[in-house]
């Protein structure tokens, strides 16, 4: 069993380096998932995103996500980095590399990892818009993904009601 590599980083993610970490002579398939900052969300022109984390817990959750995948898919090699701080459009916020002898497992591992990270890791993003406004993104809002900034109270209450306790 290969120990997964996970990290929170404050400088640009080097995808080739993650790819190398999961490369090996017994690996027949490598998948890379790369999340990038895009210029449009929920119909608004985005200029950049600040990523903030509860660092100690986020690292622990990333480690747990990776360990659980390795436990379920023995011999999968995993390398995950999530970036924090201020990113502009086009920059990489998260990258997940998975390597295995079989492609189905490498593909599954990277899918499961990104879904679990989005669900479990205590990381937040504040989107900045072309008009100078900003929002903390709230994926629990079915309306579209974006929670208006904290000063707009009505929407906050709606989001609050939608938030449920996780176990």
């Amino acid at each position: 069993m290969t120990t997964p590599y996970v990290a929170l980083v404050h400088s640009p993610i080097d995808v080739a380096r993650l790819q190398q970490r999961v490369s090996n002579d017994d690996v027949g398939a490598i998948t890379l998932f790369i999340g990038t900052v895009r210029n449009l969300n929920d119909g608004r022109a985005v200029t950049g995103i600040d990523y903030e984390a509860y660092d100690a817990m986020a690292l622990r959750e990333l480690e747990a996500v990776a360990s659980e995948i390795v436990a379920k898919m023995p011999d999968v090699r995993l390398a995950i980095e999530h970036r924090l701080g201020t990113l502009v459009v086009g920059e990489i916020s998260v990258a997940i590399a998975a390597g295995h002898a079989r492609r189905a497992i490498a593909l599954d591992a990277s899918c499961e990892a990104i879904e679990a990270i989005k669900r479990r890791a205590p990381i937040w993003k504040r989107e900045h818009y072309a008009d100078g406004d900003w929002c903390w993104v709230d994926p629990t809002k079915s309306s579209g993904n974006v929670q208006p900034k904290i000063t707009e109270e009505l929407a906050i209450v709606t989001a609050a009601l939608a938030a449920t306790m996780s176990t």
Partner: protein
Amino acid sequence: MSASPGSVNVLLFASYADAFGSRQVSAPIGAPCSVFELVEALRTLPGGARLPERPLVAVNRSWSTADAQISVGDEVAVIPPVAGG
């Protein structure tokens, strides 16, 4: 991190830090108490009305439930909807 008698120290992030105007607050309740009781106490503070009734809470860096107990010295965080990736 230890709480002073009669209060529990709580870490705040993102929109909740904005709501309280701070990245850390003292909840007016003594440990031991339940997560639910802690949240009730937080909601009496200035800005606390912006917290949902049942926000995500982590105790000692693990996801917790409303009925979980908080002990003296636990690291407690109230957590806005996560949006990593």
